[in-house]
């Protein structure tokens, strides 16, 4: 974070580059979620801007939010953060008293910024809370199937392993579904997402089995429950998550295993997708092409590497799908364990 402020201070003569800041924040802190990074970036924007009125502040906020959303291929996760921050600012400014519209703007500004930081700190703590709520779901002798690289799931599982009393008294097992597509595009042969969690769990003495995505249906019979993470929780209680979550949800429903989602409540997005293809992002997962098309593309791009379909908008490894609410048994969040239909209630509480 210090580096970013230095860098931006150097570039403060021209406009503050929020996109670079956002990316830098995400890279520098592996524990940071997208919405929190977005909020942090927005706070930094406000810190660096010389805005002196409320409307100017809100305008700046709106502009940088729009800019950020436009420049990031998948803005679903971060839009939860920006929306939340904007909402928070507006409600703070509408409040009567010293910090309201009548008060001194400088005081308001410092208050906002300090509160923004407080918000970020609290959000980071929310994973601990989730782990506390969710620990009860993992009982003696059960087998958990999970996927992806969700940090909330990882912390929940680690917490459960710790609580059970270390290596000597491990009482649950994990089936970890590893994506066949590497997270790292530069080195396709690199280790898949989630390997780090697998290693940590194994170090704690939890027996972990890793399976490919194609073996989910086969392995689900041995699992007692499915726990997945989410990139965003949408208004109808469904989740937007790493590609492959939807099919696990469908299989779990078909086999009759409970399907739990672990997500921080700042990941609730004001979005209402009606289906897989109703997400506000462009991802070219299904692409039809004939031999001619490939040849033409080969001419255009001199180098056609192994994973040929590399969409410009969103790399395949980052593509997401939508799991509808009727497949989800419950959402474990830092505001409690919610049913999918309670999500909209939470969202309405935030927004009205």
């Amino acid at each position, binding site marked *: 974070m210090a580096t970013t402020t230095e860098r931006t201070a150097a570039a403060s003569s021209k406009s503050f580059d929020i996109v670079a800041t956002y990316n830098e924040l995400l890279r520098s802190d592996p524990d940071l979620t997208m919405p929190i990074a977005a909020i942090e970036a927005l706070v930094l924007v406000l810190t660096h801007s010389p805005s002196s009125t409320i409307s100017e502040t809100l305008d700046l906020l709106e502009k940088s939010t729009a800019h950020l959303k436009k420049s990031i291929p998948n803005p679903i996760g971060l839009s939860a953060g920006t929306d939340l921050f904007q909402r928070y600012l507006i409600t703070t400014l509408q409040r009567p008293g010293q910090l309201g519209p009548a008060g001194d703007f400088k005081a308001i500004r410092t208050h906002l910024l300090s509160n923004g930081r407080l918000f970020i700190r609290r959000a980071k703590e929310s994973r601990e809370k989730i782990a506390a709520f969710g620990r009860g779901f993992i009982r003696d002798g059960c087998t958990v199937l999970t996927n992806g690289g969700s940090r909330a799931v990882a912390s929940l599982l680690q917490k459960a392993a710790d609580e059970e009393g270390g290596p000597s008294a491990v009482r649950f097992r994990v089936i970890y579904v590893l994506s066949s597509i590497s997270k790292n595009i530069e080195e396709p042969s690199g280790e898949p997402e989630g390997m780090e969690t697998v290693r940590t769990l194994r170090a704690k003495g939890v027996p972990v089995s890793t399976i490919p995505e194609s073996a989910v249906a086969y392995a689900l019979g041995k699992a007692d429950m499915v726990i997945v993470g989410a990139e965003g929780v949408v208004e109808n209680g469904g989740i937007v998550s790493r590609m492959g979550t939807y099919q696990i949800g469908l299989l779990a429903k078909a086999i009759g295993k409970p399907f739990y989602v672990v997500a921080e409540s700042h990941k609730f997005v004001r979005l209402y997708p*009606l*289906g897989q293809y*109703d997400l506000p992002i462009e991802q070219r997962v299904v692409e039809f092409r004939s031999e001619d098309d490939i040849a033409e593309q080969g001419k255009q791009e001199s180098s056609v590497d192994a994973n040929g379909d590399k969409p410009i908008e969103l790399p395949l490894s980052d593509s997401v799908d939508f799991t509808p609410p009727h497949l989800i048994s419950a959402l474990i969040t830092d505001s409690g364990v919610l049913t999918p239909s309670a999500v909209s209630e939470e969202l309405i509480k935030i927004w009205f």
Partner: protein
Amino acid sequence: MADPVDLALPSSSATAPAQPLPKPATENTPSQQTQNLPIRDSKTAKTPAPSDKQSGKAKDVSKPAPASADAPGATGADKPLTPAELKKKAKAEKAARRAKEKLDREQGGAGTAGGLAPGGGQSRPPTAPKKDAAGGGASQKGQKAVPPRRGSGPTGQTGAVEHKKKKEDKSVAVFGHLYGQQRRTTIAGAGKEVHPAVLALGLQLRDYVVCGSSARCVATLLAFKRVVESYTTPMGTSLARHLTTHLSHQITYLSTCRPLSISQGNAIRALKLSIASVDPSTPESAAKATLCDFIDNFIREKITVADQVIAGSAAQKVQDGDVIVTFAGSSIVKQTLLTAHKQGKRFRVSIIDSRPLFEGKKLARALANAGLDVQYSLVHGISHAIKDATKVFLGAHAMTSNGRLYSRVGTALVAMSAKERAGGVEVPVIVCCETVKFTDRVALDSIVVNEIADADELVSAAPPQQVTGLTDPVTTTKPADNKKGTSSAPTTDPSDSSLTASSSPLTNWKDTPNLQLLNIMYDVTPAEYVDMVVTEMGSLPPSAVSIVHRMSTNM
């Protein structure tokens, strides 16, 4: 002497329609004989055969049967007319009794309704206000009204009592509790307190000139605004107290024209609340101005602007290449589709419509005039229409607390067809609904709470003139708005429509035994068939309706 005649004649007249031609002759002969030979009479009545034999000469008379047919009317004016008169008297009595029984049954029906569906009946009060009168004891009377229908089948051919019962059974048993008082036909008998604007509105509501939940709500509020404007507080009372009772006269009148919609009820509740909160010390003119402002604001916030917001956010769900299926003629769906069209989206609309209101015709015309690609079909073509659908947009009459959609009858069918399509691909069903239409009631089925319209609407072949302004959609496409201009066309057309109507086999349905017509207005769509409810407060899953309702009423 008079008694045997009475006995003989009605029975013979009752059998007459079913008997072959010579029988009228026998009817004549006994009547002549009764004057001559009164003792024979009872025999002839019971066994027509001896009378035939006995009156050998009378057979000659029977030849010119058509001539003698009118003879009893003229010649036997003194004697056979007495039974006719008696009959008339009996009929009048019958009518009075029927009216009374009907009243009883209304109350009793409500009682049985509670008995029929205990869960639903307890969980919420029925729509119609008259239901309050339904006591526990009344239910017995309701049950008393039921048996005659079953009995009427075999014994349908005899006495006047049976005849009466047959006529009464024209209400469908399951929906018996919904047959409240008949809709008001004229403004005669309306209380003198009822404002002229409200009088006119009542008739418009009844005739579906003002139709649709939002339109009815707005029209009611505007009429009430005029009521408030022309109101003066009588001496000795305060505005806050008296205006409420004054308004309730208007409301009672309106509800006799057509049962109030949920939106009307919500608006009235809000208005009454604001009247009650008027400070008694405020001068009358100021209070009235406040109330008028309140009404204007209510219409603007809850309907006009809300519609714009809903149309805007629902139009975002329309994508290029979509085929949108909608049912009947929802104003908010129309606005949504037009908004999406204005945004330059290219999509097709398939309108599904149903008898007898044909509300979809107006929508089809409006959309086609706007340049949209419209397909129109009736509800029996649903499986065909839904085949290439990608989205379903529905309007609402109300959304209940358990997330169910209460809307024009047929909506549930459309939603079900979309969600349970044989192909396996689900089509999202989107409901556009203002929060003013939310209710805290719970609907489990469409039987307990519903509205029954006049069954005669089903009989007439042509749609009501008031709704579309056109008699037949096929013939012309005149603009709907200049009703005054086209009023000449209906004057010529009704002859056609009445002709077709009279040729309809259902025309005499009231006199046809074992035939009941049901013209139900609404049905309930299960929450599972609804993917999304678009309101002015955002898009919700149907399960969140109760939360939003709570929040919007608390504010």
